[in-house]
């Protein structure tokens, strides 16, 4: 079930376009944000109804873009480490294995307490400050192992 708040957001998004379907991406993202960073089948069905498109088209959109989390649930903090060229040149791999070790999970997995999900990302447009990662909406740049440890500790402390 979508909340009033989400429905209101979707309504706002729809105003930006001449076509209902154009609001699909925004609506999906709004729903995902409001439901713990994950998208369920029911969510997609609901968006399909609101925007009057076939559910499979919603699924197709969700399945095309990497930012929709529908295949498996992600934890509260979704860590995406850029492993494209610039970041790799400056040690992204090292950071990844470090995090795998400290979090006790491998790439693609979520910690048992659902706190962290660790995945990779292709270039996030922050190459001048490589290596970098994105957690939730936030960019963390010029990373070192020490910085990463601190970031993770802070996040843990915060939640």
């Amino acid at each position: 079930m979508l909340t009033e708040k989400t429905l209101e957001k979707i309504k706002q998004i729809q105003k930006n376009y001449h076509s209902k379907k154009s609001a699909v991406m925004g609506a999906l993202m709004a729903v995902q944000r409001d439901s713990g960073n994950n998208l369920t089948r029911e969510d997609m069905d609901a968006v399909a109804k609101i925007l009057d498109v076939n559910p499979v088209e919603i699924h197709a959109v969700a399945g095309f873009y990497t930012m929709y989390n529908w295949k498996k649930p992600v934890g509260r903090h979704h860590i995406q480490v850029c492993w494209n060229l610039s970041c790799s040149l400056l040690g992204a791999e090292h950071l990844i294995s470090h995090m795998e070790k400290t979090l006790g999970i491998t790439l693609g997995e979520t910690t048992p307490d659902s706190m962290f999900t660790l995945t990779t990302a292709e270039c996030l447009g922050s190459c001048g400050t490589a290596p970098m990662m994105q957690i939730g909406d936030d960019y963390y740049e010029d990373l070192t192992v020490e910085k990463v440890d601190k970031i993770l500790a802070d996040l843990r402390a915060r939640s």
Partner: protein
Amino acid sequence: MEKILLKNIDKPEAYKLENYVANGGYKSIRKALEMEPDHIIQMVKDSNLRGRGGAGFPAGLKWSFIPKDPTLQKYLCCNADEGEPGTFKDRAIMDKDPHLLLEGMMITCYAIGASIGYVYIRGEFEYGASMLEAAIDEAYEKGFLGKDIFGSDFSLDLYVHRGAGAYICGEETALLESLEGGRGQPRKKPPFPALAGLYAKPTVINNVETLGCIPAILEKGPEWFKAIGPEKSPGTRICGVSGHVKKPGLYELPMGVPLRELIFDHCGGMRGNKPLKAVIPGGVSAPMLVEADIDTPMDFDSMAAKGTMLGSSAVIVMEEGTCMVKVAYITSRFFSHESCGKCTPCREGTSWQTRVLHRIEHGEGRPGDVELLESLCENIFGRTFCPLGDGAVMALRGALKHFKEEFVYHIQHKKCMVDS
């Protein structure tokens, strides 16, 4: 040198409308609104401004393809998808000086007769998107957007459309497909967007940096602009430098500055003063150059003459000791990850390429792999639906051209030649 695009970047709170105005902003749009739209298009044509999104297509010429019929709805889409690995220039403008982009869009919309404009921003740029939205809200509040802007009879609405993670949406027709709420797969051309773009209506798609140049051209005139850098690709360029340099970052320089000057003068040279092994001059789709090539000026035509591209002028610098098999693997993995799946050679070809490179990189190379890779390149190149597949080939060919022996070594010795 006078900056055009990054001039406000370091000023405090440059993102605020009042500060943008205080820094001399929103003058050009007022000037534009006094002019005939065609005159503006002519100015941009005269300026020789070429698209900064990658292909370097003349902006004024693109605008002039838009039908003049006033009853037709027209659109401007700003391409802020910034996905080419190595590139981080457009983000700076949106994060720090969003009104520059808005002013550029306003002038462009007026010139082409569009009453609606979208900024298609990649979904990961949450911060940039919120900065843009705040700037747009401010502009509406001030009457800079909406009905009859600046007291003229020109009305304009601008919106931000967030992507959600797909490099291909930087390709202009995939971008439109995505804006229409679909999977971002490229459309066939013709019809070209100028005739049937967004919602099948005439549409101009321009990069952020391209649009960022417009206010200055309006203000100081095409001759002034054309005088910066080489006449055929004039203006300044934001070079985003990453990799093994001392001072990576953004450098706005006149077009045509040689790579060497950029790396050694502006970026302070190589990290740890190691020798330079290779440099990618325009995002990973652009074939790499080696030390011997770095006196090449950074403009569209000189780079093309060297068999590579200026692209997004995202410069990735690699020092001696960098494994080129790994570089090739990483870029290939990127392209196959981003292949939209529409056309056969890109979908299957880039994936095959990646599988082979992955094997070689992991010490499981087989004799004949280099020839296989070369043959795959040949079978993909020029046969894909859009240039993404070509990008994958160009990147790999660049590495094979200069460093074939590293691949051969890797295959024969099941390990890396450089980190032994």
